[in-house]
């Protein structure tokens, strides 16, 4: 067996490409998350935090986080953060941003938080054109409380409060919040992404970047709805979360940009 003549010098820091790989976790993450295996929410958090770094706005970023499984992220994100009441993040973010217009203000909410408890807050904040970036982690259930039906649960989906599957006659129809927000004049950028495949992750990261950029450009409220796997709340094995999402949620909530300042949006996101 031929020996290769490579010496690894461990006394000094590795050269840039290797050090970049070693520092794989965004430095804004302070520790391990405590969410379920296969959960999509930590992936979304990572994309958001990386974006703040990519845009070099970390030192003026303020987060407002609602109530759901992602609520525990306030412990692991190295960002100034207000943990607010269930549903009220866009209102709190409004107060913060109006007082500190030079800061970058984002909210982190789930479907239960934003579309159930806080539907009024998100719609009016969008209509007022508040210059904030809202991130919706849409898994179609109240994950934190154990998998009950939310306003975004798709028809047919089984939850603990729709055991036979959501049916329109009994439970009404899901609310496509991103479409509603996009229809309001005060919103500047609206997109729907996912974190179920590597390609979807890459695309969603571009969406978040454009959403924050939209805030920096003063275009009004930006919203990125991210479909996130919740295998626990969906009662499927962790490894099947992505497939389940693809077959159940994505047909109802198609991925893509719904509103963007520039006309050639699709290309920009697909680039």
């Amino acid at each position, binding site marked *: 067996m031929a020996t290769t003549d490579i010496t690894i010098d461990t006394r000094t820091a590795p050269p840039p490409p290797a050090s970049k790989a070693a520092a794989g976790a965004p430095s804004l993450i302070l520790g391990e998350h405590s969410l379920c295996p296969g959960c999509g929410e930590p992936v979304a958090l990572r994309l958001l935090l990386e974006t703040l770094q990519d845009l070099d706005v970390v030192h003026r970023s*303020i987060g407002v986080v609602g109530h759901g499984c992602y609520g525990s992220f306030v412990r692991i994100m190295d960002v100034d953060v207000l943990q607010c*009441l269930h549903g009220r993040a866009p209102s709190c973010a409004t*107060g*913060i941003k*109006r007082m500190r217009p030079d800061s*970058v203000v984002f909210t982190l909410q789930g479907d239960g938080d934003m579309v159930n408890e806080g539907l009024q807050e998100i719609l009016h904040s969008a209509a007022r054109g508040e210059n904030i970036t809202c991130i919706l982690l849409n898994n179609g259930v109240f994950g934190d409380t154990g998998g009950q039906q939310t306003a975004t649960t798709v028809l047919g989906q089984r939850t603990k409060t729709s055991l036979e599957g959501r049916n329109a006659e009994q439970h009404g129809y899901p609310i496509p919040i991103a479409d509603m927000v996009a229809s309001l004049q005060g919103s500047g950028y609206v997109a729907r992404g996912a974190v179920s495949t590597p390609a979807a992750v890459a695309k969603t990261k571009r969406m978040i970047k454009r959403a924050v950029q939209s805030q920096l450009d003063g275009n009004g409220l930006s919203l990125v709805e991210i479909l996130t796997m919740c295998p626990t709340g969906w009662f499927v094995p962790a490894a099947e979360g992505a497939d389940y999402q693809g077959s159940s949620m994505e047909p109802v909530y198609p991925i893509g940009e719904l509103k963007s300042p520039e006309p050639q949006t699709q290309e920009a996101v697909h680039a």
Partner: protein
Amino acid sequence: MTLELLQGSVAITRAALAADCKFFAGYPMSPFTPLLEAMSREMADASGVCINAESEIEGANMALGASAAGFRAATGSCGQGIALMQETIAEAALNETPLVVFNMARNQQDYYQCTRGGGWGDYRTITLAPKDITEAVEHTQLLFHLADKHRAPVILYGDDLLAKTLVGVDVAPLDLPELPAKDWALDGSASGTGSSRQVWTFAMGKKNDPGPGPDGQWRRVAAKFAEIEQVEARHETVHAEDAETLVVAFGSAAKFAEYVVEELREEGHRVGLFRPITLWPFPGAALAEATRGVERVLVFELNAGQMIDDVRQWAHDRDTIRFIGGVSIDESGLAFGPLLDAPVIRERILAEHAEHAEPAAAVPTARS
């Protein structure tokens, strides 16, 4: 001192601006509405922001956000609107965000609402009840100070008269002690430093710097309110020293009662007034002292009897307490009814006082 003729709501607005209030959000509701209108007119010139919020819930949360960002912020409403804000008021108490709430009430039926901590968890709200607009101007400034000092929500208990009456008033800035810088406030500057900030009722802190957690935080907050209770109680007495009959009243009702007490004194009746200025903390120790030598304590409040609970808790002898107030609402339902009138109050005081006490030799004095 130069007096300017101002509507109460405008005077309170000017006082808030003098206290460096930079954010206001509210939702119309009578008689709070003129305050919202005045704020929206005057805030921009003071380089502040006023938002006509979509609901009381939104307004309160916007103000909480603005305050968490380190700026003096307020909201307001009355009755049902304050009820909608209770979750947020409690949140501000438990996550220790200063918040000034202007309760321009329709009557005095919301004493419990202001003083009992009507949201959730263990907390109270410092509540100042000015007797007139001049005092409301001072209280407004004091409230912003107290909110920051204690990092807590505080309430101004106003009413229709304070909101709408035109009076000559001087909005002079109060000279209040300097407070420490808000190093807890969120401005983004600590993001990415490894010691980023957090405002959170559960106070668990960050992974690399754990906080006290809910148990520790809520014990601490409870201890803080116990301390506030000891130091922030305020009251006023009028002719209480030698009174046989002591009337207890707050806010506008106390202003009317004071007038009647002065009138009865001039006629030789040994009548006095005890006025809680803070509804919470209730000035209990002072009331115990003031009621030590009296023969009867008459509680006059424009409701079915709410403050009387606190009076019962503190008066020297509970058996001397009589209720002479009552529910009294005008036809619209939005303001005080006929009970808030000097002759009626006089009659009710005398009915209790004269029944038992012979008036001392009347000393006729000329009214100035």
